[in-house]
């Protein structure tokens, strides 16, 4: 019996202490007819067999040069990040409810919150939500609580299409309406409409947008302010190391800034686990969803850390909690915190700059290829949109055979998108030769097709 320590003698001694004849008697309160069921699962494998099978499965995934983004990026993860995060003391601990027995996790969460508030120039950060998309849902609900009586959220079409879907799935449950602001088809930027927005709680401002473009966030922030709307920024944490942070947008910064933290040391892992973050103003702190760590003292006056404002949470407030979230993404927070520490300000900014420069260079050179269009000329961070003369899926599949994941055919994120549209992203992992290989592959594809 793997992972069960008892031997026969110990089992017998324990049963006899309970006055029971066998283990089955422990279940005597359960109606017999419920217990009759069989379990049609394979018999257990030993560790060696498992390793062999799984390594074979893992090898089925080719190692690809990654030019795909869409909110998940193939950045370098320094060796120490997971060496530390996977230490048993972090890996196998629960949520730090008992502060005295969890100072390690608590201080780390506090440092994570500090990294995030500094990165975003916001005042408060929680200790994570599931992922970027669900953070945005929470941000919307938070805004609606802050603006009682409203039931609408304004969203730029520039938000990732796959995040839009999550918003729709989850907000519609509470009868909340999303009102979409279209993008300018020429520039790819969000168009700010005029109209009556009194039913709306907030405007969502995605920076960067779904085409990788850097929007004029100050303008949007000021517009929202003028309409009396709260502002929810959707940001990319690595981009923020180079970009003006949401806490400084417009006149007084946004109200809530959320994002996906995957780029901060979290493996791509086919889509998760990642980590969502949510930062806000101190005045909104009682509407914050998720856990929050505070610095305090112990009985001797020494510095100590603990969870705080737990009365917001479901285990105390139940149906009226700020969110239903309980388990969050602690281990990814651990990795992200260590990642930010080990790169440091310098390393983070250099990784961001390198990613940006690779993308800028690749976009420029792709643009020179006959038949390929780069529809939007605006500044980008690390990702951009290309229009191929033929189907983007066809090129993606072609490049796959050359060991390249060439990007995301936009249609896979949004069925209404142009089938020729491809989203291409770069990170600092890509070398000059990799860009050349990409271009060569694209050139050959164009010739052959």
């Amino acid at each position, binding site marked *: 019996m793997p*992972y069960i*320590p008892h031997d026969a003698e110990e089992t017998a001694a*324990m049963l006899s*202490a309970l006055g029971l004849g066998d*283990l089955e008697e*422990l279940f005597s*309160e359960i109606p017999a007819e419920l217990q009759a*069921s069989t379990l049609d*699962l394979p*018999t*257990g494998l030993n560790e060696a067999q498992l390793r062999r099978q799984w*390594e074979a*499965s893992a*090898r*089925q*995934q080719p*190692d690809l040069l990654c030019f795909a983004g869409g909110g*998940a990026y193939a950045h370098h993860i320094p060796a120490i990040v997971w*060496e*530390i995060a996977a230490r048993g003391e*972090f890996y196998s*601990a629960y949520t*730090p409810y*008992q502060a*005295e*027995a969890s*100072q*390690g*996790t608590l201080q*780390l*969460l*506090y440092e994570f919150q500090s990294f995030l508030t500094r990165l975003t120039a916001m005042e408060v*950060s929680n200790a994570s939500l*599931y*992922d970027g998309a669900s953070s945005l849902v929470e941000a919307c609900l938070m805004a609606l609580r802050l603006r009682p009586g409203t039931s609408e959220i304004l969203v730029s079409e520039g938000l990732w299409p796959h995040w839009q*879907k999550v918003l729709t*799935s*989850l907000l519609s*449950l509470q009868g909340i309406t999303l009102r979409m602001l279209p993008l300018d088809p020429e520039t790819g930027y969000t168009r700010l409409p005029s109209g009556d927005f009194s039913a709306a709680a907030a405007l969502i401002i995605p920076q960067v947008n779904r085409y990788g473009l850097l929007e004029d966030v100050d303008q949007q922030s000021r517009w929202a302010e003028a309409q009396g709307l709260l502002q929810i920024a959707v940001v990319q944490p690595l981009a923020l190391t*180079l*970009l*003006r942070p949401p806490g400084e947008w417009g006149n007084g910064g946004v109200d809530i800034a959320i994002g996906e933290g995957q780029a901060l040391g979290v*493996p*791509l*892992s*086919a*889509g*998760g686990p990642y980590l969502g973050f949510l930062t806000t103003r101190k005045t909104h702190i009682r509407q914050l969803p998720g856990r929050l760590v*505070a610095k*305090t003292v112990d009985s001797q006056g*020494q510095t*100590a850390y603990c969870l705080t404002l737990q009365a917001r949470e479901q285990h105390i407030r139940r149906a009226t*909690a700020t969110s239903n979230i309980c388990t969050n993404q*602690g*281990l990814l927070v651990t990795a992200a915190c260590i990642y930010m520490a080990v790169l440091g*300000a*310098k390393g983070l900014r*250099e990784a961001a*700059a390198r990613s*940006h420069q690779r993308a800028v260079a690749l976009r420029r050179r792709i643009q020179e290829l006959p038949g390929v269009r780069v529809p939007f000329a605006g500044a980008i961070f690390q990702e951009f949109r290309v229009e191929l003369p033929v189907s983007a899926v066809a090129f993606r599949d072609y490049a796959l055979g050359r060991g390249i994941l060439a990007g995301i055919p936009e249609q896979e994120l949004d069925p209404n998108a142009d089938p020729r549209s491809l989203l291409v992203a770069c990170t600092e992992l890509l070398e000059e030769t990799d860009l050349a290989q990409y271009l060569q592959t694209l050139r050959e594809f164009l010739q052959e097709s």
Partner: protein
Amino acid sequence: MESIFDCHHQRPEELGALEIPGNLLRRELPLPNPSELEVLRHYTRLSQRNFSIDTHFYPLGSCTMKYNPRIAHQLATLPGFARIHPACPAAAQQGLLHILAELQEDLAELTGMTGVSLSPAAGAQGELAGVAMIRAYHRQRGETQRQRILIPQAAHGTNPASARMAGFVVTELPNGPDGDLDLDALDRALGNDVAGIMLTNPSTLGVFERQIQEIARRVHESGALLYYDGANLNAILGRVKPGLMGFDVMHLNLHKTLATPHGGGGPGAGAVAVGPSLLPFLPVPRVIHDGQQYRWETHRDRPHSIGSLSAYGGNIGVLLRAHVYLRRLGAEGLRQVSAYAALNANYLMAGLQAQGYRVAFPQRRASHEFIVSVADLQQAKGVRALDIAKRLLDFGIHAPTIYFPQLIPECLLIEPTESESKATLDRFLTVMAQLRREALEDPEILRSAPHNLPVGRVDETLAARRLQVAQ
């Protein structure tokens, strides 16, 4: 170095040219630049200030803090899995998708359900998905008036919170003195405005709901559905299938029952499983086999789906770990899990009772966990459950869950799990006996505990007043 922000090295940057408009450029980034060793040392030392399963007995009720096999971590993080971009086409991730498809099937078998979606990121998101499916089900049948969800008072806080997030109104139901649901109250509550009931069995009171078949009959008769909160599945793993108990939809907490690590707060995975009636509503994407290959399904494959819960397919890395565990144990191993989880819990319950501790349901068999109330000690000596919890830490034992379920005063919810040895349980009993003596003879020791930890009792009130939440 107390904090990572105490590192003050300045390091000149080599940024190169940025094609970013000046008005969007950041002026400064107030983050530290520690050396690699400084980072490693700081966080390694922090880690040592934690209790964890790998270092301490951790009988935290409702959390199933069992051993998290390391092989699962190693296999789930093989580069072939860890480096897949989520937008990678199905053709290039057949190995992974095959495993996930198997996991979907295994979970369906384990739960006695028909269909499984793996995407919820944790139990609470599974609950949200589950009640959202209940909602969609009634809507499709035109029964939009079903706006209420029934939930026992003892239920976990996520249950009502999730119901509310799905747009429902919550009605709480009382439990009877033996821990089972009050059937009369149920009858009074049921009606054509009720969409469903959320239960867990064994319940959060640590006992098996013996009337479950009867409950299912009455709920179904009223036109409502039954939701099963899978957080307590460890108690009946491989023995009793929620689908056969009459539940229509449920989530599993893979990070409890299937031994994936809790990571100091997460990540989890809260796969949902449904019976045939809710199949059309499962959240996308699931892994399907389209005759040629495995692939993620899209909205088009499941047009009535409640939609997607996250940008991609969920917490894949967690799912992989869970599947390693399942396959390591196999059918027989899984049945042993529940047997030994129950044995350990009942052994502790009997041992504590013998020492004079009051358990919440002495006449009942404990499931995988049980409740002790120290209301007697509080009255006699002013010793609270909190004090017992803190004092346990001094002996290198993590505290049980305290003050949950809220309705039992001064309670401790104790869940040893199957992976703890008799020797560990016996030591726990010895320590608990000492704590009881201390409570009666020298209660101040408890009230001022802990005494042997890196910090003394932490001032949570000051924390909430000062609200120093970043530096």
